[in-house]
């Protein structure tokens, strides 16, 4: 889009739009540059950091510019625009094309992923030991994260889905000690199995669809899979996403990784797991195999219910601070699945918006928890107290992060959860009730943790605590700013997303009318029906 505008200004013919390629591959360029930079002195390490920041900024600025351009017309949410499409591997049993596109389903998530990448670089600013490996791996894994969200061909999506496994595991392993090694091992096996499940689903989809293409545009608009194949594909994708997002019963690798690694690495692990898993569930499972979605709605709802409750009560029961954030992620993952299993445009848009919220809110919690535990060396709730006196900015960041994920008005979580609950209610009212209960328990857990850390009499180690400042503060401020932006500006973002999810729910309605038809009337519950209907 930017490229096209520049050439339009120059008055010549429009070139191919490569904005998405720039967004996805700018971090790879940064990682490549970093590999060749020396990092022996402070100045050289500063250059490494600035290079990483520059690469992340390029992606962020391009994605932001394009997204806000698209928001000018919310109807664009239903169209894959911007788009790049060239042949890549033609002719073989599973031909793959280089097809990148951004629509209402993926583009806001892509933008949030670029924010996460930016925040990761800032949160890692104080890394001095082996900074080249650290920043290089973060940028390298960022390519996979961004690529999954931009890919419009299942072969390409699979490639990007596998991409971050090795760098993220290596980053977790870099944490040092037996705990990090064990966490890395578990995460590796879990994520590799998720890749295997997705691979099998993609091959099944590509080979049994009766059309030699893995292009999502073809698969989701032209072809209808037989019921058995569709169910198989759906089950495999759900399995892949359970493993990637860390849903029950595959939650321990994510909790361990969040507990055993540095804040930035924990942010990357949970952020990339949630984003790639949740998005793949919506895009491939619901959009690619709607008949399977019809068949497996009840098990998926059960999974959502168990995961929400497990995450919420786990967060309440756990005493270790870092593991608490891991359980928050699990609970949010369950809520995302609840929104997706609502199968209405409203609930799916809400689920995606919740993904976006979690990608901003959970890293904020992890940032605060990391700062507190690293500086005070206290890991358990009972060992802390009175931190607000010495670290008011950290306590504010914690409060905003918790409020964001709990759906307090003005922040991004509010419209997200409202959409999830209102969109899912007509189909699964008991599921929504359980979701509300889980949210209440999660709120209690976060409130209890916050009050133990920041309020009350000061603990023994509190004098070692420093308040957030410098890059850490900037990272927190960016997350807060975007939590607010997506909260206050949901009237702009959600209609754009609903236009994208409308196609998914429409396909679900076409393939499984008995299940989805009652939900159509519920669309009136959407906060944004008026704006959404303007398309």
């Amino acid at each position, binding site marked *: 889009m930017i490229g096209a505008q520049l050439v339009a200004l120059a008055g010549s013919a429009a070139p191919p739009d490569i904005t998405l390629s720039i967004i996805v591959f700018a971090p790879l360029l940064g990682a490549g540059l970093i590999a060749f930079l020396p990092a022996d002195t402070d100045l050289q390490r500063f250059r490494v950091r600035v290079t990483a920041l520059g690469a992340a900024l390029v992606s962020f600025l391009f994605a932001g510019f394009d997204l806000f351009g698209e928001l000018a017309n919310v109807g664009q949410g239903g169209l894959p625009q911007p788009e790049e499409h060239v042949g890549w591997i033609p002719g073989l049993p*599973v031909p793959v094309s280089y097809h990148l596109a951004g629509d209402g389903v993926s583009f806001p998530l892509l933008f949030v992923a670029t924010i996460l990448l930016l925040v990761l670089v800032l949160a890692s600013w104080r890394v001095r030991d082996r900074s080249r490996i650290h920043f290089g791996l973060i940028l390298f894994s960022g390519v996979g994260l961004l690529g999954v969200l931009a890919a419009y061909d299942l072969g390409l999506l699979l490639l990007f889905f596998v991409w971050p496994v*090795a760098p993220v595991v290596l980053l977790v392993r870099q944490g040092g000690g037996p705990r990090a090694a064990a966490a890395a091992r578990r995460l590796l096996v879990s994520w*590799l199995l998720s890749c295997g499940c997705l691979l099998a689903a993609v091959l099944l989809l590509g080979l049994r669809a009766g059309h030699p293409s893995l292009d999502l545009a073809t698969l989701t608009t032209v072809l209808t899979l037989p019921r058995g194949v569709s169910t198989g594909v759906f089950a495999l994708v759900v399995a892949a996403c359970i493993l990637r997002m860390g849903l029950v019963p595959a939650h321990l690798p994510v909790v361990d990784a969040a507990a055993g690694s540095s804040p930035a690495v924990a942010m990357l692990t949970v952020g990339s797991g949630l984003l790639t898993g949740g998005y793949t569930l919506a895009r491939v499972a619901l959009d690619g195999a709607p008949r399977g979605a019809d068949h497996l709605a009840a098990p998926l709802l059960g999974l959502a219910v168990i995961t929400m409750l497990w995450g919420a009560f786990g967060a309440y029961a756990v005493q270790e601070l870092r593991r608490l954030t891991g359980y928050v992620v699990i609970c949010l993952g369950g809520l995302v699945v609840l929104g997706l299993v609502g199968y209405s445009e409203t609930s799916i848009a809400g689920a995606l918006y919740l993904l976006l919220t979690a990608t901003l809110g959970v890293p904020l919690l992890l940032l605060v928890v990391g700062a507190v535990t690293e500086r005070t060396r206290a890991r358990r709730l009972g060992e802390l107290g009175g931190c607000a006196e010495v670290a008011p900015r950290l306590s504010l960041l914690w409060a905003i992060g918790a409020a964001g994920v709990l759906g307090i008005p003005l922040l991004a979580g509010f419209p997200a959860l409202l959409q999830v609950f209102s969109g899912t209610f007509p189909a699964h009212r008991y599921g929504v009730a359980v979701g509300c209960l889980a949210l209440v328990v999660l709120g209690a857990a976060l409130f209890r943790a916050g009050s133990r850390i920041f309020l009350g009499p000061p603990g023994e180690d509190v004098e070692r605590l420093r308040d957030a400042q410098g890059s850490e503060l900037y990272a927190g401020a960016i997350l807060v700013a975007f939590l607010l932006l997506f909260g206050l500006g949901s009237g702009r973002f959600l209609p754009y997303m609903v236009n994208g999810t409308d196609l998914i729910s429409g396909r679900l309605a076409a393939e499984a009318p008995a299940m989805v038809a009652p939900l159509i009337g519920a669309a009136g519950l959407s906060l944004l029906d008026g704006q959404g209907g303007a398309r």
Partner: protein
Amino acid sequence: MSLAFLADLGPEAVLVLGAAAALAVSRRRGDRIAWEVTAVGIAACCLTFADSLLFWHASLGPAVPDIEHGSLLVDRYALFVEAVILAAAVAVLLLSGDSTEQLRPLQGEFTALVLLLALGGLVAAASQDLVTIGVGLTLAATASALLLGLRKREGAAAQAAVQSFCLLAGAVALFLAGVVVLYGLTGTTQLTGIAARLTRPDTAAVLAAALLILGAGGLLGLGPFLGWRRRSADPAPLAAVLAVTTLGGLAGLGALVRVLDTGFARVPLAWTVLVAALGAATALGAALLALRASRLRQLVLLLVAGDAGLALTALPALHHHGAAATLLATLVFAPLAAGGLGMVGWVGAVGDRREDLRGLWGRAPGPCVALVVVLAALAGLPPLAGFISWFQLLGAAMAAGFGWVTWVAVLAATVAAVAVLRWVAVLLDPDVEGPTVAWPGPLVVAGLGLTGLALLLGGPVAGPLVGLAARAARPIFLGF
């Protein structure tokens, strides 16, 4: 009598002359003998390739085979395999450029044997007669055994070489026994004749297929030969292991594709399950053994054997897409094997045990990055060439109705990735003192650069490579 067919044997003749020239040059005295011998070997490969270019125009037409004299068959498939084998031979010669000390005073013999090994592969791929294919495999097996026995004065090396010779001779004997059974069944050793007469998958056909598969698979280190591949590698010079693994593997793959997809196309029940099971079992077995590998050389060899096993899993897809996926894997196999063992030669200069390489990143970041890239490609991690090849292979296997192969292969790839990432974690270990890695000589740099470029670009520019493989696979199924 027309002697035109002699022109068709030009590429083979050039390789034989190159081997003789390498031996002649090595008999001279001087400091630059190693360079000169390597240059002769590379020149022979380049000339052979140039000679084969003459066939390209003819092979582009619709009528296949284009050139056929007795058992010689120069079609697109033969030209494809020939180009891959010659490129691999050049890579092997370049990557063994620093092995002068190990090979002294047998540099000429080494180069000659590498060229003869390549010749064996060429003959096996460019033949429509099972006896000639057997001759090609015998040539490759003999050259392999001799290469592994280059350190004939060292007890362990000589013992391993004798063992290799026996095993490879046994593999060739199995292949020839398969040929005999097939001749008894069909009355011919011509692949097209066999394909026309072999229409029922009876016990004899299954036995013949099994013997042929095991025979050609011996050079690949498949199944029962996996242990041999591991054991023979330790005492032999790395340059010899590099040549045997890369060129021997290509010769075996080239022969298997030709024999099975052409000769047995009408009786898939006789062999498809066996090939898929053997390939999947090799991949899984190699991956599990790789988990326990304590030396880099072993790790790389096992990963290469696993990749060779995976390459076979697409063969049961009896369509030119399946063969194309196998050929793409063949194309990727060459830089994987050569690059992997080339990196062992470079980085292993400081010791190739896990403890020797602990913290390599801190001491030598450049070699460490190169090693990580090669290991990632061997494990099939994206976005490298190995991943693209792996994806297509599994697609072809699933298209052939072998969904279980996909699951086994996914498990094998998961285990291989775990093995590789454990090594990568060791390489990135902080604050470990040790020797730095010196830069290799210019020949090795060139070899590593070429193989590394192939692995890196094999992913992003996979389209043209797939096109080449698909074109090469087409004549195999012509007429069926």
